[in-house]
């Protein structure tokens, strides 16, 4: 909870999700603006390990990818062997998120125990 809360505390950040290289969901946290929608939805079945592994493969070789959508931005960053996804509004500062997540990198890199870790972050 503490690891993600620092990113989530930044202005206009709506969610943080961490995946392993193998596509396992390691942890997540959403701001109230996104939480109810995510709790109702089936996002974990869409982002299943197989799908996420393929997604990670398609981003291979990239340090980071920033996706610009009509309503939001999504930042994907490598954190050691893990991958961090940050969902944010269009006005969020990506540079600020980059700065904060850089300071958290050691913790994000160590996040390898999928089940135990995800329990820590379960809402």
């Amino acid at each position, binding site marked *: 909870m503490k690891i993600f809360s620092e990113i989530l505390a930044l202005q206009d950040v709506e969610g943080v999700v961490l995946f392993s290289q193998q596509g396992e969901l390691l942890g997540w946290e959403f701001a109230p603006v*996104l939480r109810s929608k995510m709790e109702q939805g089936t996002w974990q079945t869409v982002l299943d390990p197989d799908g996420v592994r393929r997604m990670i493969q398609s981003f291979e070789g990239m340090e980071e990818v920033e996706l610009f959508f009509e309503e939001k931005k999504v930042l994907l960053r490598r954190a050691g062997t893990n991958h961090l996804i940050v969902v944010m509004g269009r006005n969020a500062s990506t540079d600020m998120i980059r700065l904060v997540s850089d300071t958290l990198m050691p913790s994000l890199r160590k996040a390898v125990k999928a089940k135990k870790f995800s329990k820590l972050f379960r809402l």
Partner: protein
Amino acid sequence: MRIKVLIADPDPESARQMLAWIEEYGKNFQCVTASTGKAATDLLRQENIGILVTELIFSDLDGFGLLDFINTHSPEVPVIVVSSHGRPKTREILIRKGAQAFLEKPLEAKKFLQTFDLTARRIQEGGSLNGASLDTFAQMIEMEQKTCTLRVLHPPSQGYGLLFFKNGDIVHARMPGGLGGVDAAYEILAWQPVSLMIENQCRIQTEAIQADLQALLMEAMRLKDERSERRTEVPVAPRSTLPTKSEEDVHKPNSAPQDPVYAWLETIGAQSLGIESVYQDAAWRDLVTHAQIIGSVFDAGKLKACYLNAGHGSQSILLPDEQDTVLALLPGCKREQIVAVLAHHPPRFQW
């Protein structure tokens, strides 16, 4: 990165059949055909051929001759021989001359594609990368003392080249059209960003390069800088009645200036935003598809652009349009501004 396949067969029906099978098999292959041995050797010299599928009998040059040509000029190109004239002794000679496989005509789609698939896998068994930084990658090969063949594509200029490494040393480089050795290495090592295909072996026998990789990289960058300086400092010459081709034209990437998106961006100051060039590259389709899935999961709306940072100054923006448009960015580019500018509907791009 697409692999170009040369199908050399005097029988047009047979060539058409193999072309249809390969193109149906995967989008990553582009086929060219030749009906004579001479046409095949010309294409091998001029084009970036990745795989050769050849008949054994031609009116001007037989399959053995073609294999000898390959062994001398492009030993990295794997060859599949297809023929109805394959006696056991002939097959033995073909395999000894370096052919990857021999298939008896009439061909069966399943068997042909199995053999083709094995061959295509072999030339990228070490993996493939898009948007990579070539200087960093080459230095990694040197550090790890790897032996490999790198097939390099530079999407902004559609340039193609090969780099050969033995135990971490760069021993040869080649580009279609005859450029080889250090001159080809200078040209290729200055490309950025690139798509790479890595084969875990080096079949080249001649070691045309004796220089150190670091020295080659430095010289490649120096020559690149020199060219770009010359491009920006072209003096205003008095008008001539004769049309001339300037050095600027020679060195300009082919696709960028003609691209309608680039032309549109130029009118609003692409250089000041940090856009180096615009080109098309279908290799990113998977990434765009996954980006769209992420957008739908988080209810983010329609995808407008993807910014990619491969590190070491290699950055680009992909547009989710049907033409697979990619904007290569200069260091220090203003990506948020670029995305905002793109909201003003450049040509052929509908959001």
